[in-house]
C-alpha cells in the first residue's frame, strides 16, 4: 500500500501553504507538531463547544481553523456554536466578516460503535443555513473536497466515513481520477451507464458502485451519480445526469425523514426529469444505530439491496426489452 492517503496529503499541503491555518483537536500527531509547531497544532481538552467557539473567534480575526472533532457525534456537543454562531456570523454582519473554518468528523461504517458514536447527519446539517456539508464517497473525493474546504471563505463540515480510513481503504472503488480540488455543489458522474441511475452520497457511493459492478455481470449498466455535497445540493446537475425514462434509485443511509434524497425526488419529479413511478428511495431505517451486526444489517442499504431494488423497479431496464 504505497499510495499516501489523500486526506493526509491535502492537510499537509494546506498547513505548508497557509501560515494562518491552525488545527484544533483533542489528539495531535507528534509528526505534525514537529513539522508545524505546537502553537498551530493545538492539543485541546474534551470541550467541543469551546473549541468551536474559539475556532470561530480565530476565523473572524483573519485566521482559518481546521477543527477535527474526531467523531461527528461529538459535534453535537457544540451545536450552539455551530448553528447559532458559526453558521450565522457572516450573514448577521451583512458580510463584514467571513468564517473560514473547516470541521472534520467521522460518520459511521463498519465499526459497530453504537447509537452515540455512529451518525450520518448530512441531511440534518444540510438544513442549517450557512453551512457547506461535504460528504466524500471515496478517498480521492475526500482529498478533493478537503482541498476546496481549506480554501473556502465560509464554514464547511466534512463528513468522513471511517471506511475511507480502514486498512483496506486503497481497495475501495475510486470514481475520482485524482484528489484535485472538487467544486462544492457539483455532483459527479461516478460511473457511466445507460440502463438506470443510482444517486448516492458518502457511504452509499461505495455501495452503489459495488452494486453497479454486480449489475454489470447481468448485462445491466447502472449510471452512478455522487452528490459530493449535501449542501449545496446539485438539484439541476442531478436532473441533467439521470438516464431518461429509466429507473432512478436514490440511495441514502440516513432515514428518509426530511432528507436530501426526498428533496431530490421532489425536484426530479416536479421538474420532469423522472416519472414518479420510476423514482425509488432506498434509505436507512429511522432508528439509532445498534452495536450488534445482526441488528444493524437490516437497517442500511447495501449493495445487495441496491441490486434487488434495481431488478424489482417497475420502470423498464434496457436489458429487459
Amino acid at each position, binding site marked *: 500500500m504505497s499510495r499516501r492517503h489523500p486526506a493526509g496529503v491535502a492537510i499537509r499541503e494546506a498547513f505548508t501553504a497557509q501560515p494562518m491555518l491552525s488545527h484544533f483537536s483533542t489528539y495531535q500527531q507528534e509528526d505534525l507538531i514537529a513539522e508545524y509547531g505546537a502553537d498551530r497544532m493545538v*492539543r485541546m481538552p474534551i*470541550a467541543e463547544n*469551546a473549541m468551536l467557539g474559539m475556532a470561530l473567534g480565530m476565523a473572524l480575526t483573519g485566521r482559518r481553523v481546521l477543527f477535527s472533532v474526531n467523531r461527528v457525534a461529538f459535534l453535537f456537543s457544540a451545536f450552539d456554536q455551530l448553528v447559532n454562531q458559526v453558521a450565522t456570523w457572516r450573514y448577521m454582519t451583512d458580510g463584514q466578516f467571513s468564517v473560514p473554518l473547516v470541521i472534520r468528523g467521522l460518520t459511521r461504517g463498519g465499526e459497530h460503535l453504537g447509537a452515540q458514536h455512529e451518525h450520518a447527519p448530512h441531511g440534518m446539517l444540510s438544513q442549517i443555513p450557512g453551512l457547506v456539508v461535504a460528504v466524500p464517497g471515496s478517498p480521492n473525493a475526500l482529498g478533493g473536497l478537503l482541498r476546496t474546504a481549506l480554501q473556502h471563505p465560509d464554514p464547511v463540515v466534512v463528513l468522513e466515513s471511517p471506511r475511507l480510513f480502514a486498512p483496506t481503504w486503497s481497495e475501495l472503488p475510486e470514481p475520482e481520477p485524482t484528489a484535485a480540488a472538487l467544486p462544492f455543489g457539483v455532483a459527479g458522474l461516478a460511473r457511466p451507464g445507460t440502463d438506470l441511475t443510482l444517486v448516492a452520497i458518502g457511504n452509499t457511493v461505495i455501495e452503489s458502485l459495488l452494486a453497479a459492478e454486480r449489475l454489470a455481470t447481468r448485462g445491466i449498466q447502472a449510471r452512478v451519480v455522487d452528490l459530493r455535497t449535501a449542501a449545496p445540493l446539485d438539484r439541476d446537475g442531478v436532473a441533467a445526469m439521470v438516464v431518461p425514462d429509466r429507473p432512478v434509485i436514490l440511495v441514502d443511509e440516513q432515514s428518509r425523514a426530511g432528507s436530501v434524497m426526498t428533496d431530490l425526488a421532489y425536484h426530479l419529479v416536479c421538474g420532469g426529469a423522472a416519472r414518479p413511478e420510476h423514482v425509488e428511495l432506498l434509505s436507512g431505517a429511522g*432508528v439509532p444505530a445498534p452495536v450488534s451486526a445482526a441488528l444493524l444489517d437490516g437497517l442500511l442499504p447495501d449493495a445487495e439491496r441496491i441490486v434487488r431494488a434495481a431488478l424489482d423497479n417497475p420502470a423498464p431496464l434496457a436489458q429487459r426489452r
Partner: protein
Amino acid sequence: MDLLSAYRDMLRIRLFEESLLRCAKQGLVPGSIHPYTGQEAVAVGVLGARRPDEWVVSFYRCHGHALAAGCSPQRMMREILCRDGGLCGGKSGSMHLADRAHHLLGSTSIVAAQLPIAAGAAMSAQLDGAGRAVLVFCGDGALGAGGAYETLTIAAAQRLPLLVVCEDNGWQDQTASRWVRHLSPAQLVSGLDLPHVEVDGNDVEAVHDAATAALAACRSGAGPQVVVAHTYLRDFHAQLGDQPPRQYRPQEERQRWAARDPLTVAAGRIPADLTDLHAEVAAEIDELLLSALAAGTPDPATATTGVSVTTDLIGAHR
C-alpha cells in the same frame, strides 16, 4: 469492608476484562472495548458503600462499575459480545451498559454527558425524600467539558445528593491530561468550593472509606461530594477491532503504577493463600465466556423496537 470479598470482586473484574481483551484480539468483540483493568479498586470500593436502591450512572469504561453494581456477568458478557441474552439486547454493546434491575441507570460514550443526567436523577432522589444518593463515575478528562462545571454548580446550589467519583488516571485517550489542563481535578473542584477528597484509587479500603463518608454526607443533605481517585489504566485506553493500540505512555510510568496494582495492594493485606480463589474465579469467567460464545445472535426483528418512529424502513417505498 470485607477485604477478601472485595479482592474477589476486583479479581472478577480483572479476569472478566482480560478474557474480553483476548476475545477482542480474535475479532470477537464488536466495536470498541475500554478495559477497566487497573482501576478495579475504585468501582469495588465505591459501590461497596452504596445501597442497592441508589442509582449508578457510568460512562463507556463501564464494565467494572456494572460488575461491582451487581449486574450479571453472564448477561454483560453476552451484551458485550452481542450474543443472545445480553443486558440490552445487543443494542448497547461494550460502552453503554444499563441494568434497571441493579440500578445501573446507564452508561454514555459521550464524555461528561453522564454528569447532568446523574444530577437529574439526584434531583429526583431529593424530591423522593427517602435519603438516597446518586453515584456517578467520570474520567479526569470529563473535567475539560463545560457541562461538568454547569452540573457541579447547579448540584451545589440545589444541594443535590450526588456523589461524583472522578477516576483520575492522568490520561484522556492518548493525550496526557496535564498537556491540556492547568489544574488537577481536585484543584478544579476545590476552586468551586465543593466538598471533596483525594484518595489512593488503587487502595480498595481507602476508596471504600472515602466513599462511605461522602455518601453519608450526600444522604444527610450536605449536598454534592466529589471523590477524586488517583489510579491508572493497566492496559490501555481502548481497542477498536482486533488490533491492540500501540503504547502511548512512558514505560517508566507504566512500571511505577504496575508495582502498585490494586490487586497486589489488597493481596498484601490478606494473610490467606489466594491461589484457590484465583482458580475458582478464572473457572467462573471461562465458563460464562464459553456459554456466551455458544449463544446465537439477537433476533433481527428486535432492531426496530424501543423507538417511537420506525416507519422509515428500507424498501418501504410506494
